[in-house]
Structures are given as C-alpha cells and as structure tokens.
C-alpha cells in the first residue's frame, strides 16, 4: 500500500536526508521507525504525505503516485493519511470536541456525521468526559489523545506518528500506545517514529532502522538497537 523505490531527498540547503531508500509497507502493518536524530526519519515520513517531495525515485501511497501528484489532488491524498506530531498542534481556542470536529468540518462533512463520529473517536481515546474542555485544561497525554482523535476522525488508511510520545512520561506513553495499537487493530496502517526503546522492545512490531538516510535494518518483530 506504501512503496518507496530508489528514493533520494536532497534539501535546498544541499543536505541529503535520504539516500536510495527502498521500502514496502502493507495495509494494516505497524511499523516503528527508529534511528539517531537527524537520520532522516521525519523526512521519510513527510514524503509519504507529500509535505516533502523526493528528489529522485518514486513513491506510491494507496492509489497516489506522489511524485506526479497534481496539486489539486494533494487534499485527496491527505484524507488517506492521518498525522500526529510530538507537539500536538491543537487549536487553543477550540474545545476538545471542536478540535476534532474541525478536521471534519473543513472536509464539509454534515453536522450529523460530525456529531456521531467525534463522539465515537473521543470514546476511543477515552476523552468523552472532557469534550467541552479547552486544550490548556488538559495534561500532555490528554492533548496527544485529542490530536490522535483528530487525525483519525476522517478514517484515514494510514496513521503517521512522528515521536508521538516524545514529550510524555512513560506511564502516559503507555496509554497513547494502547490507543495507537487499538487503531491498528481496526485495520489502519501505523508508521511511528520513536526514541522510546521500552515501547519498541515491549510491543513487538516491524522495526525500520534508519541511519544516515539509509535503511540500516528492517526486521519483523525487531527491537530497539542501533549504533548511536
């Protein structure tokens, strides 16, 4: 469902973030992306939702040919790929409910549809009781759960998480991981970059180790080990 062939990314400043990368990820897989800082993990993931265009090679995501994707078709790709970040990116003036609903409103979903689906995803992330609260009244873990709820509100086929637990304590991180695994069990492909060795070692999934812009190892049920 996602396939990168001979992908290379050179940024405008001349830095080559990704060298000749070949990866294939099937629908429904759970993939950890690990490796040292600056190895190219974020670049790899940004290319999947076309935040960054590869310099060479081809990328296929579902039915989308990323390199030749027309600008007007980018929104359609983005609807298939949910994204969460380390820093949540919530709208501070909107309530929890509104933050999640926002993602659906901008796709012109009907108020009825929105009402039903937002309640559903807030229940999934365990925040139905806090729907009326503002982000700054929530803990970091709760804010990340809102961000996840928002990312999956439109039922994307892939969820990309770039260090989603990077700002959270181990206990809170476990809660987030439970939610992400639950989303994976519903059939959503998960691609998650992380520096959290405990998570990778305890909850076994496929591990992509990226070092120096290259796939250093690619193991089913791998662990968190690479040379820093």
């Amino acid at each position, binding site marked *: 469902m996602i396939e990168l062939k001979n992908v290379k990314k050179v940024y405008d400043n001349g830095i080559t973030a990704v060298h000749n990368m070949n990866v294939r990820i099937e629908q429904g897989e759970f993939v950890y992306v690990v490796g040292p800082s600056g190895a190219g993990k974020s670049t790899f993931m940004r290319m999947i939702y076309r935040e960054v265009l590869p310099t060479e090679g081809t990328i296929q995501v579902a039915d989308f040919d990323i390199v030749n994707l027309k*600008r007007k078709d980018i*929104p359609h790709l983005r609807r298939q790929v949910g994204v969460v970040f380390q820093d949540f990116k919530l709208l501070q003036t909107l309530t929890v409910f509104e933050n999640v609903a926002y993602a659906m409103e*901008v796709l012109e979903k009907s108020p009825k549809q929105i009402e039903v689906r937002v309640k559903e995803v807030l229940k999934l992330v365990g925040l139905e009781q806090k729907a009326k609260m503002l982000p700054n009244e929530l803990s970091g873990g709760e804010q990340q759960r809102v961000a996840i709820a928002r990312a999956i509100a439109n039922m994307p086929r892939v969820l990309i998480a770039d260090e989603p637990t990077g700002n959270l304590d181990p206990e809170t991180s476990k809660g987030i991981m439970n939610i992400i695994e639950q989303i994976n069990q519903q059939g959503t492909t998960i691609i998650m970059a992380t520096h959290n060795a405990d998570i990778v070692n305890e909850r076994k999934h496929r591990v992509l180790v990226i070092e120096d812009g290259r796939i250093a190892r690619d193991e089913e049920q791998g662990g968190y080990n690479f040379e820093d």
Partner: protein
Amino acid sequence: MKIRTFWRHIKEGFKSIGRNGWMSFAAVSAVSITLLLVGSLIGIVSNINNFATDIENDVSVRVYIDLAATDEIQDDLADQLVALDSVEDVTFSSRESELDNVKGSYGDTFDLFEGDRNPLHDVFIVDTTSPEITAEVAQEIEGMDYVSDVNYGGADADKLFQMTSTIRNVGGIIIGALLFTAVFLISNTIRITIFSRSTEIEIMKLVGATNWFIRWPFLIEGALIGFVGAVIPSVVLWFLYDTIFGTVSGFLSGTTFALLPPDPFMYQLLLGLMAIGVTIGAVGSAFSMRRFLTA
C-alpha cells in the same frame, strides 16, 4: 459549494476582521479615502463631459460686433447674417444686457464696469439650423466686416473636452497610486490574518481541506474590507452631490446646461464604487495568498 460551507466562510471572514481590528481599520480607511477621491473625480469628469456635450449641441454662434460699428453698420450686418442659408434666427444683445448677464452669473463685482467702462461688445446671437454646420457658419461670419470676434459652442466644447481629458489623466495617476496603496494595505492585513491563523491553515492542509476551502475566508475578508471602505465614501458623496446639485441647479436654471441628475447618476456611481472596493479587496487578498498559501 454547500450552503453550510458558504456561511462558514462568511463567518470566518468577519471573525478575522474583528480579530485584526486596527489593521482592518487602517485598510478600510485607505480604501475609503481612495474611493472618495475616485468618486469625486468621476463626478467632476462626468459633469464636465456632460457640459461639453451640451455646448456642442448648442447651435448658436455669438458674433461680437466691432466697437466702431455705427447703428447703420450693425443693421447692415444683421441683414447679411439673416441672408445666410443656414441661419435660422438672429437676435441682438446690447453690451448693457451682456454686462447684466455677467453680473447675473458672477455677482456685483462687475458693478465697476458700469456705463462707459463696460468692456463688452454688442452681440448678435445667430441660431443655425443644425449643430453640424455651426463651425462652418461661424467661419463665414468671421470674414465679414465689423465682426470683432466669433464664438460658438464647439470651441468651448473642445476646450472642455480637453480639460476633461487632462483631469482624467492626472486623476488617473493619482487614483492609480492610491488604489495601489489600498491594495497593498489590504494585502498586508490579510497577510497578518494568514500568519495569525497559521496553525489552523496547517491543520486544514494536513487533514485534506481543498485549497479553495482554505482561501475563501481570506478572499471574503479582503472583499469585506473593500466593501465597507466603499460604503463610507458613498454616503459622503451622496449627500455632497445632492447638496451641490440643489445649489448649482438654481444657478443653471434657464440655461441649456444642467448637472447630471442624482437619479440615476449617483446610483451608477455608488454601484461602481462598491464594485471597485470589492475588487481591490479581493485582489489585495489574492496577492498575499499567492505568496503565503502556495503548495
């Protein structure tokens, strides 16, 4: 676009204006001043144009009789004029009545020209059968003895048309510069809005909102600034023109000249100003979106 979406965009546009209160105010003011000048200029040029057309259609030739002409010579000249083919009517206006006319338009300042000091000539007012031949007749009369000068509408009309075009050119440059400033200010306002909403825009893009969905509120915000900026000068021009029309029409009554009546002229002008306002607003906002909302 769904109706729900339409209202959402309008609401967002209004919200933005409120959020950037001072910038919006500055932009609205710039548009107001620009459109006040644009509107005044259009009002002036249109009326001068209208005057010129009136003059052009005025078929009479004014023949200034040489001061040396005796009564007999004047009678003789009148006969010659009446004899011309394309002349319909000849009336005499003495220098005294000419002076009275001048005083009628300019006031008693001309009192000192009373009696022997009167600098004006006796005049024959020659009506021609049609406006097209006025110039030809005037030329013919100019060659006659004891004719000091000949004056007909066409000459004045030419001068007025020339004046109109000068005003239009100078005004055009000033208005162009002002419009540019207004567009720049609006685009700056929208740019600030875009920055203040950068997280929202980022999220909209991430979840797959279309580019047009993202753009509409900013376009509406710009258009609204332009529209509100057009309403203020429209109201001012409305009252101003109404007053001027009331006053000047009194002076012009009995002449062939008239100001353009407020209905429909003012309606057309105000509608035009609204259209210009909305356009520069939308252009200004499109301008900043091109730079900050691409990809």
